[in-house]
């Protein structure tokens, strides 16, 4: 490779934020910086993060305005810092400016993206067609994009995990966490992690827990729902209506407003669970691999990224589908099937008398999701993009030294 990348990385949140996007950037960017030179990585934190302007871990940080997803400043940042590749992480349905910039060859756009819908909406195809490369979060995503005959689809690259941190911890070693979650060895301890309550189908999953509890007097569940009490839904009201308010512990609302718990705390929380419920359409679904990193089983949806990620757990089918205002059709999970899956795991737990744990799932995460492994896949993609950029002469190159020398030597003829 002769052309060195200068990357504008638009990953939504600042790497210091404890959000999903923030955590991805925190682990991914230093590896990218070490490989290509930290001076060659410009971190764009588009929304509400003007205080973050400056640098982070030796990489320049630039910010956006309150407008949209920060697309309005993409081109200016790209040109100001002399970038030759835009690596953008996240959803594609809101994009409005970037596709036109890419069409006009103003940016070389590579998108690392979730595909969390059924089929492929035309609306989205039109938005992502101008990208130089689409790298989906999952094999499901890759298959969907390829089925739509998009010519710019690369191999999927899963999201990474800090596999040094996410490991099994015996719950005996975590008595304080067990107590704070009101979990015990005699209860069936359910964990739901949901920043987006509607997309995560929290209500349907709560209905499933309520159903199982109503129909099995011996079923003594405890629930820790890691979400805002009043987010997209009033969760307290939901649980009260379903008669499961008494089994639940909410996170400290103050802590949630400050970005929630640290990753270390979340590792402990996952290790205390008997099952992680994550039954929704996922483009990736961090909960899938976080649970399995601790050896904990997952109940997941049989559509989307769940089936390829869940080695230890139960898949449940959808009961229908609905189309969002952005033309994305998403499956609706079947509460009865979720309740059955929970029952199956609960009965196994009853039989063994121990928390259900699986070493194969732990190994699967360790082998496939380390950030070193994910980053090395990215280096291949970026190197290839640079090669293509040069091969297809995607920006007007400077003349060679020889040609410039000839241009600057003035001769006169009379």
């Amino acid at each position, binding site marked *: 490779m002769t052309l060195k990348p200068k990357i504008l990385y638009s990953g939504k949140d600042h790497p210091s934020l404890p959000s999903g996007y923030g955590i991805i950037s925190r682990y991914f960017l230093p590896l990218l910086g070490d490989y290509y030179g930290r001076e060659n990585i410009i971190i764009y934190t588009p929304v509400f993060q003007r205080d973050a302007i400056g640098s982070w871990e030796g990489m320049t940080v630039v910010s956006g305005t309150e407008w949209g997803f920060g697309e309005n400043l993409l081109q200016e940042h790209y040109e100001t810092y002399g970038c030759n590749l835009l690596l953008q992480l996240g959803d594609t349905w809101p994009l409005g400016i970037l596709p036109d910039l890419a069409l006009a060859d103003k940016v070389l756009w590579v998108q690392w993206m979730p595909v969390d819908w059924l089929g492929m909406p035309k609306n989205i195809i039109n938005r992502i067609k101008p990208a130089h490369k689409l790298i989906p979060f999952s094999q499901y995503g890759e298959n969907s994009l390829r089925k739509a005959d998009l010519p710019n689809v690369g191999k999927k690259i899963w999201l990474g995990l800090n596999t040094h941190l996410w490991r099994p911890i015996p719950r005996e070693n975590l008595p304080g966490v067990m107590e704070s979650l009101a979990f015990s060895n005699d209860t069936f301890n359910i964990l739901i992690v949901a920043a987006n309550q509607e997309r995560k189908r929290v209500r349907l999953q709560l209905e499933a827990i309520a159903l199982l509890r109503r129909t099995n007097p011996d079923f003594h569940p405890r629930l820790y729902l890691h979400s805002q009490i009043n987010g997209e839904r009033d969760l307290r009201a939901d649980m009260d209506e379903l008669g499961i308010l008494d089994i639940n512990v909410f996170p400290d609302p103050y802590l949630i407003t400050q970005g929630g718990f640290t990753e270390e705390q979340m590792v402990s929380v996952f290790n205390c669970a008997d099952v992680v419920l994550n039954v929704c359409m996922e483009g990736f679904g961090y909960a899938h691999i976080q649970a399995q990193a601790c050896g904990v089983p997952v109940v997941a949806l049989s559509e989307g990224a769940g089936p390829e990620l869940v080695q230890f757990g139960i898949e449940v089918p959808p009961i229908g589908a609905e189309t969002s205002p952005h033309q994305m059709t998403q499956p609706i999970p079947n509460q009865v099937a979720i309740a059955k899956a929970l029952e199956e795991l609960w009965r196994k737990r009853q039989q063994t008398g121990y928390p259900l744990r699986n070493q194969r799932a732990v190994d699967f995460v360790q082998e496939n999701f380390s950030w070193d492994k994910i980053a090395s896949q990215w280096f291949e993609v970026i190197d290839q993009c640079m090669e293509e950029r040069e091969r*297809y*002469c995607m920006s*007007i190159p400077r*003349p060679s030294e020889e040609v410039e020398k*000839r241009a600057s030597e003035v001769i006169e*003829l*009379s």
Partner: protein
Amino acid sequence: MRLAFIQDLDIFSIGGGAQLTDRTHFTEGLKRGHDIELVTPSSGGVVPKVDGIIVSNASAFPASNLMGMSELGIPIIWFIHDYFPICKYRLFYPMGNSCKSCYLKERWLPVLKMARLIIWLSPLHRESWLWLYPELEDIPYHLAPSPVSADLFYDLHLERKEGVISVEGLHPFKGRDYILRWIEDHPEVKVTIIGGNPDPLGSLPPNCRSIGVVPNVDMNEVYNQHEALLHLPQSPSPFDRTVAEAFLAGCKIIGNKNIGALSYDWFISCESVAEHCKNSPKEFWEVIENAL
């Protein structure tokens, strides 16, 4: 002979240098009794049954079409005006190391290697092509200077009241940066710039004025008002007919080694330039007739 002349553009409409050149050669071919059909994208791109094909500017015609015709045994003569199809920028050719891995080579080299004859516009033009495609070295070639007519461009022996003229010099590939630097370095010289300006809001030095496009028929008079032509292309130009026009019109040339016209050893006097440019259409057809 029955020939097809493939061109992207309608050479009989008013146009740039390539159209002027092609129009002259095409007309000369007709005068010599050849039955020549002009094939443009708007004519449907159908090539009739012919004794040979002359490929001029032809970016609208896919490589596979030309390859197919070569494979049918139809002789193909390439009349090359710029750096199509070896460089996508055509008029700007960086000649850098990255050119060596350009995707266009895989597509076009096999087609170009089937050429019966290649006609370039100057020694520099051929040399620059061969730098990237040395595989074409052994293919018969001819160098055809642009057929600039000394009947149209000549010294009117008027008083030259203006200083220096630059034609299309505000385009980056025509050496905008070099031109502006030269103007800044010579504040005592008044400079007139003719042609388009892709950056109309950009500031120009105070000793310079941009007067826009001037029709080619008026250019002899304009050249004759100026002492010299300033022409500093950024990358190797195929010929640059403006250099020949201005020289015939009595202008001194302030140029550089990227000018194709100046790579001819006969580009030293008005007389020899007039003679070679005048003979260009005749020689153009003689080599084609011999090749076919």
